[in-house]
């Protein structure tokens, strides 16, 4: 069998980035939540907020640590597997990605240590400030990463000389045409991820009847937040979709499973897209709805995948189904948040076992939605690395062989499997430890100022 280095590199990148993405998407949301908790602690001087903050800070520490470890590989993959792409785009992506690294260091150097280890040693106000700066820092980091990604989707502010991109306007390149949509969509996704994890864990504590007063408050706050954010995300997602329609019509066509350009296109609820025959099997749809959503006109024209020749089409089944999974998760989140509102009366939500169990299960939903969403946008722009300008095949490392790519794909898979197993196992121990055990420890001066060291639980 001939091993295709291009396909293997794509699989490896997808695997590493998917694995990595679940950590930051959670830590970004959680950092903001922790900042809110320490803000409340600062304002009210109530020790219960300190306790809650300390618990979630431990969780944050473990997840942040895993994110850092899994992220190291990312910064080298651009060179190992996509060297032609890196060489062409280094003038823009080099500084942008470096700024991300620099931001992360600055954050770690200046504020993370205070957040993780400063409790009781610095005034509450300072501690709150550190938490706030960490949460802002996580956003700045994602700002740079999303700018880089958006630029690859909608390149701007550059000129090409001899195959090398040169930046002519940093503002146009950084704030490119799809940037703000992607950033807003992703920022909300992070809040939703943090929100549903906090809700799920709080629900679990309520089921276990541990520290119920505190976790009821946490759950109540979170449900209010989700009530506003889940519909807002649907709205932002819609805007992002319209932006995509403008710049990457073929991606939208694949999301809709729409092969032929047509007026009054149906919204497909189910279909089995067939790339080879360039058509769908077993279509079930709502007439004209896709046209209405995308053009706000029941007879609006929707582009078809077949506008592009087969070699310039993305994999329609993957995009089509990833999109449906993302939307389904999103609507489910809205539903759960709204049910929470109806259960407000007499605090029914905290005694309703089925609702608490649902919230527990919903902990997974934002992660599934985020990964599915990234599959839509990344697979949907295929075969382009830089949309309309450079394909995956042009960007891949020319000296790379299938054997080499397979070796590292399996290698990274094994490494990450070990790290993830250990990390997930340890995280469950930290969560089981609960909020009761987070009273201050007096060891410390010589403990390492490292994220995971902030967690107290024993490994085995």
């Amino acid at each position, binding site marked *: 069998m001939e091993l295709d280095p291009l396909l293997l590199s794509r699989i490896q990148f997808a695997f590493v980035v998917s694995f990595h993405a679940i950590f930051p998407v959670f830590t970004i949301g959680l950092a903001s939540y922790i900042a809110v908790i320490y803000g409340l602690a600062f304002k009210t001087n109530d020790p219960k907020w300190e306790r809650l903050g300390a618990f979630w800070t431990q969780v944050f520490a473990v997840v942040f640590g895993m994110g850092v*470890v899994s992220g*190291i590989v990312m*910064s*080298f993959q*651009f*060179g*190992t597997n996509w*060297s*032609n792409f*890196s*060489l062409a785009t*280094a*003038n823009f*992506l*080099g*500084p942008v*990605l*470096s*700024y*991300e*690294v*620099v931001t992360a*260091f*600055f954050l*770690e*150097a*200046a504020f993370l240590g205070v957040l993780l280890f400063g409790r009781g040693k610095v005034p509450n106000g300072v501690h709150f400030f550190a938490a706030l700066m960490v949460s802002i820092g996580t956003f700045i980091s994602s700002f740079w990463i999303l700018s880089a990604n958006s630029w690859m989707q909608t390149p701007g502010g550059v000129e090409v000389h001899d195959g*090398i991109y*040169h*930046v002519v306007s*940093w503002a146009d390149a950084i704030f490119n045409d799809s940037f703000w949509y992607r950033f807003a969509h992703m920022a909300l996704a992070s809040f939703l991820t943090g929100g549903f994890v906090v809700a799920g864990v709080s629900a679990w504590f309520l089921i276990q009847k541990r520290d119920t007063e505190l976790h009821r408050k946490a759950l109540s706050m979170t449900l209010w937040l989700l009530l506003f954010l889940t519909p807002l995300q649907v709205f932002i997602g819609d805007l992002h979709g319209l932006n995509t329609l403008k710049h990457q019509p073929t991606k939208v066509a694949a999301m809709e499973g729409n092969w032929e350009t047509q007026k009054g296109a149906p919204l497909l609820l189910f279909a089995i897209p067939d790339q080879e025959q360039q058509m769908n099997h077993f279509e079930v749809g709502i007439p004209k709805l896709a046209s209405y959503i995308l053009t706000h006109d029941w007879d609006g024209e929707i582009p078809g995948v077949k506008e592009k020749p087969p070699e310039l089409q993305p994999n329609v089944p993957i995009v089509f189904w990833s999109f449906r999974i993302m939307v389904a998760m999103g609507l489910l989140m809205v539903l759960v948040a709204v049910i929470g509102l109806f259960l407000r009366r007499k605090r029914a939500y905290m005694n309703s076992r089925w609702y608490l169990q649902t919230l527990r299960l919903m902990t997974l939903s934002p992660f599934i939605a985020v990964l599915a969403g990234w599959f839509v946008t990344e697979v949907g722009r295929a075969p382009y690395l830089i949309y309309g300008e450079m394909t995956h095949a042009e960007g891949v*490392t*020319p*000296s*790379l*062989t299938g*054997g*080499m790519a397979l*070796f*590292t794909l399996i*290698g*990274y898979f094994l*490494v990450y499997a*070990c*790290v993830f197993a250990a*990390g997930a196992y*340890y995280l469950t121990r930290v969560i089981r430890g609960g909020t009761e055990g987070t009273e201050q420890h007096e*060891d410390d*001066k*010589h*403990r*390492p*100022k*490292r994220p*995971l*060291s902030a967690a107290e*639980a*024993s*490994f*085995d």
Partner: protein
Amino acid sequence: MSEPIFDLTYIWAGIIAFGVIMYVLMDGFDLGQGILFMFAPSEHDRDIMMNSVAPVWDGNETWLVLGGAGLLAAFPLVYTIFLPALYIGVFLLLAGLIFRGVAFEFRFKAHTSKYLWNWSFAIGSTVASFAQGAVVGAYIQGFETENMRYVGGALDWLTPFTVLTGLGLVAGYALLGATWLIMKSEGETQAWAYRLVKPLLASVLIIFGIISVWTPFVDPFVAERWFTGFTPIWLLPILGLACAYWIFNAVNKKREGTPFVATMGLFIFTYLGLLASKWPYVVPPSYTLADAASAHESQLFLLLGLLFVIPIVLVYTAWTYWVFRGKVKADQGYH
């Protein structure tokens, strides 16, 4: 595009060169703990070894990531030729660093599974060190390129020469680790570290010596640089040897801090000697610093941020070392 008023390429070369030696010296001694880890006489010694670097190792590794990202921004050609050429080696390096990083985090929290993390730490550190040494060897060897692309094979980097440079760096890091441990420990642990220094120093000198003699044969450019008349760069190996003697002497006199300082000196002069051999080639044998540089506006854009952040990172680093100065005890902290 207008001609820049001032060429930032050499400022960037200075920043990257500084970053590399910072990384080698700082991550070197904590990788060294990992290399020596399973040879330590007792679990107690291992606790001390790990505690001696636990507060700082992560900060040390940030220099590597900064170097990687900085290379892409300032010298993209280095990034896009080294990484494909060293594909398998980079994987080993990263896998090694990940396993030892995770071991740092979990060993302190483990009881029955401690031995797993011990091995994870030791093997990860040794593999990562060897891979770094092989990278240095591959750099000396040079890369087969065509039209700014690497065109060689997957294992071109793995030759008897690079295996030797790999072993050389493992021995070198072990020496840095041992002298660091002398400074940070007492009693039995310190006595063990003292015993390690002379055999390690001897191995380092022998391996570095063979590499130095071998290098001119690997790369005629280096031969020409060193053997065309008398050049001041001969001072560098002489100063390096002086440092070696200084280590020897300091260990005999049971000095505690001097062996580490002298070992850093040995590394610095070796490093400068390497730079002097290759200057101005960053992707030998074809491309110089100027060939590999990114566009002026890109170098400038990132430099503005770095000028702000590097001093802060340096102050923070210095502060961390200050807080954790002095001798380490096994039972401090981490339980």
